[in-house]
């Protein structure tokens, strides 16, 4: 369960929670973490999109400053730092793009991005609301991603999208993270009942499904 959202005063979270893959709750026990939150509807999506690149590069730069985690370890080579920055920037950008693309436009909840550095991994958790009719197709895609041969699925999706008019839901960004960047992905779906502060008395709105996408990138 997403603790940051649980701590939020204007939100109650109810079961059921559905987990896909090796997902766990991030606890703020590590020394270094970052949390970003934003509401896509607050500015036009074109402007928001421009921020993806800036945010992704910032997240990548921020993390690499703290490496290696153990000061006794040998400093990373310049090549390794460039490689890691490239990886983090690509993953952060794809996660932000997906969160904005699929965030339910009617949701009053923000998109929440968490980045945490552990002794041997960098972990991203990005939470957004999803439209109810997208939950089942997305979970089906996730099942495929977790069980397929990533190399085969990657080529299959490229071939498939080459004939499709729109590329919504191909999962290409997710499969590149797994196949090209060796990242480990997992997901958590949960229902939230946002309470609108503006209404008196405060009444729960319709439930919103939130999905948290977790990406673990090993540093070893």
């Amino acid at each position, binding site marked *: 369960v997403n603790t940051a959202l649980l701590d939020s005063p204007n939100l109650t979270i109810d079961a059921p929670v559905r987990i896909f893959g090796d997902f766990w709750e991030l606890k703020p026990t590590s020394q270094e973490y970052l949390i970003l939150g934003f509401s896509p509807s607050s500015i036009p999506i074109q402007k928001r999109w421009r921020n993806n*690149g800036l945010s992704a590069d910032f997240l990548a730069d921020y993390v690499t400053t703290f490496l290696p985690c153990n000061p006794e370890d040998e400093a990373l080579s310049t090549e390794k730092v460039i490689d890691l920055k490239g990886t983090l920037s*690509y993953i952060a950008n794809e996660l932000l793009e997906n969160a904005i693309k699929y965030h339910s436009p009617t949701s009053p909840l923000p998109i929440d991005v968490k980045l945490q550095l552990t002794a041997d991994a960098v972990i991203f958790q990005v939470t957004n609301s999803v439209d109810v009719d997208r939950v089942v197709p997305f979970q089906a895609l996730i099942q495929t991603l977790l069980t397929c041969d990533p190399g085969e699925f990657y080529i299959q999706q490229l071939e498939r999208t080459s004939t499709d008019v729109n590329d919504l839901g191909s999962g290409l960004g997710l499969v590149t993270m797994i196949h090209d960047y060796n990242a480990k992905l997992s997901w958590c779906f949960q229902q939230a009942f946002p309470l609108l502060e503006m209404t008196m008395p405060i009444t729960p709105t319709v439930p919103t499904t939130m999905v948290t996408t977790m990406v673990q990138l090993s540093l070893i």
Partner: protein
Amino acid sequence: MTTILNAIEIKAENYIASYDPETSKVSLSGALRLAGMEEYAPISQLMIDVLNSGAVQLTIDLQRLDFLNSSGINMLSKFVITARQRPDTKVLVLGSVSIPWQGKSLKNLQRLMPTLQLQLA
């Protein structure tokens, strides 16, 4: 049939896409993070136009393309899938070893089109 295509340049805040008819080279540079295939359409069309001009050898120069999002990878893949239907056209992709995404993702293009030449320098 070979048709003459003039030099083309698409320039935006973060990237440049250009075509040089003298070298039959399409160059992409900067950072490409466009939102979906619709936004990639002008660049995609540029590459298809070059392919349709009947060039025998076509070079895609990515040596200064620092960033490409997955929609951009999709665009390149679509182009390669179109190009492999033209056995008379040879495709050469130039990349850089110092740009991490290229070493990780460009080799997938060869899986789509085994005759594609990939040079990472």
